[in-house]
């Protein structure tokens, strides 16, 4: 009886240890990635590398392109995503809304390469006839909109109904109560969710392969191919030249800094406010 108990107790401890091992095993790749990117990327960083075009050994066009594509995508995607989320949160109690909700869920899981094909067929072939930042922004918006819609809905739903009722009781219109009371109250969740979504699309590569294509030079116009950090990393990583490979690590460092700055910054800033 006693041995039975101590054996069970031993299994219990063993299991505890195994779970701890799982955590450690999962954190090792993260640590290794961050370490390698910093160790191999940092030596690349200098003014020339950050500002010159690709033929002169720099990643200036890629950095510029990443910021352009983030800006365009945000301009297209965030308003649509937020307003969709407002509808789902404020008028979402019907079959149409639950269909939209389901489709948003499906869209967040659609492989991004598929979105690339869609944007290629519609924009590159159908509308502009060229690879362009516009096509890239549309592709990334297709990824951004469902995520933003979902986080908007979630953060608006956290606002207590009494706040809405109080606004209506003062004689405010529903839209007035939404934009002056509900959205400001949900602001921190909204901003956090949106910035995390932007961080996600900043690192997306697959849809860009078929839409902005890549370019050695700085921005050449809305109807010309453009470079971006993820594309530069991908293309350089496949080159045999050690120099180009080293540039890929430098570009990876810049990209990961952008993405992590968005992630960590947002989380630190909203840590107090989001606590329920």
């Amino acid at each position, binding site marked *: 009886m006693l041995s039975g108990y101590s054996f069970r107790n031993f299994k219990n401890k063993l299991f505890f240890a195994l779970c701890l*091992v*799982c955590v450690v095993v999962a954190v090792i790749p993260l640590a*290794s*990635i961050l370490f390698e990117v910093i160790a191999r990327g940092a030596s690349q960083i200098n003014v020339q590398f950050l500002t010159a075009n690709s033929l002169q050994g720099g990643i200036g066009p890629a950095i510029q392109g990443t910021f352009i594509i983030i800006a365009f995508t945000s301009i297209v995607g965030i308003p649509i995503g937020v307003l969709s989320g407002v509808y789902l949160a404020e008028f979402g109690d019907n079959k149409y809304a639950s269909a939209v909700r389901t489709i948003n869920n499906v869209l967040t899981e659609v*492989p991004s390469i598929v979105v690339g094909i869609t944007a290629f067929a519609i924009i590159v072939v159908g509308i502009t006839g060229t690879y362009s930042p516009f096509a890239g922004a549309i592709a990334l918006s297709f990824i951004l*909109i469902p995520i933003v819609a979902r986080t908007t809905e979630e953060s608006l739903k956290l606002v207590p109904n009494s706040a809405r009722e109080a606004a209506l009781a003062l004689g405010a219109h529903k839209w007035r109560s939404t934009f002056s009371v509900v959205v400001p109250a949900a602001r921190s969740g909204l901003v956090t969710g949106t910035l995390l979504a932007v961080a996600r699309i900043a*690192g997306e590569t*697959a849809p860009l392969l078929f839409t902005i294509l890549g370019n050695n030079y700085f921005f050449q116009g809305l109807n010309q191919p453009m470079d971006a950090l*993820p594309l530069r*990393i991908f293309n350089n990583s496949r080159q045999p030249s050690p120099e180009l490979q080293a540039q890929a690590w430098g570009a990876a460092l810049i990209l990961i800094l952008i993405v992590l700055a968005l992630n960590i910054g947002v989380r630190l800033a909203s840590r107090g406010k989001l606590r329920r």
Partner: protein
Amino acid sequence: MARKIKGDNIFKIITGVIAASAIVILLLTTYVLVNGSTLVFSQFGLGFLTSTSWNPVEGRLAFGLLPYILGTLVTSGIALLIGVPLSLGIAIFLVEMAPKKVRVPISYLVELLAAVPSVIYGLWGIFVLRFWVLNNLEKPLNHYLGWISVFSGTPFGLDIFTAGIILSIMIIPTIASVSKEVISAVPDSIREGAYSIGATKWEVIRNWVLSYGRSGIFGAIILGLGRAIGETMAVTMIIGNVTGPNAIPTSLFKAGQTLPSLIANGFIESPDPVQKSAYVGAGLVLLAISIVINIAAYVMVTRLLKVKGGAVE
């Protein structure tokens, strides 16, 4: 009063129309993929899904997706085999064991795994993970178990096995975070009942918590599977990218191809309309898989979370 209702109706209609953007995106995507792949399906019929040839040479055109469907299944299978136990261990640790102080930082770290762009996973895979896997896993496995066909061949590092390993890391955040929610949703009364009959913590988790939450955990695993199937860049950079019968995954230690990596590699360069259509067809298969997986996972996860809501009320 009437004016007020009118204004709010306009608000409702405008936001409602904007919310339809999701439907438009899905319809556009479906239309593009169906429309773009008609050519290949009309030429090869269902043989497009079951054939192994891939020949873009004029006059001998032949396209079949079977090797890449198999490649996708094998890499995702490896990913689940390694990723699921790790993710469940993490989820259990976070919900049932971790002291409050470490819970939040560890959750952050696991979520950061999801924040790393997949192209950076790929870069790290080519220059770091590849050599570690080659020396510590592939060579020993090949040396001792090389007589089994899946471990045969000459380990090289840029192959199906390494692609599966990197996928297993990439799906951890998805499975761990959903399972974490599912496990926290298991009512405490279940745990208390089990403790009161003398069970140890491990027994409580294994026999009660996991079994109560199994539908949700299954859903989490399926979501992870969806991620693994659709992952493009990291796999493209690591798997070696071969086409045709060579891509059939007869051994884990050889170059292969998945559906997304096939598209990423060839879509842009293909001049032939039938070949282009074949890539779009691969995209259609991917879309269909991801829709089915997502709906299945959603049903399984919400079923459990709803039960919890009912119990709390």
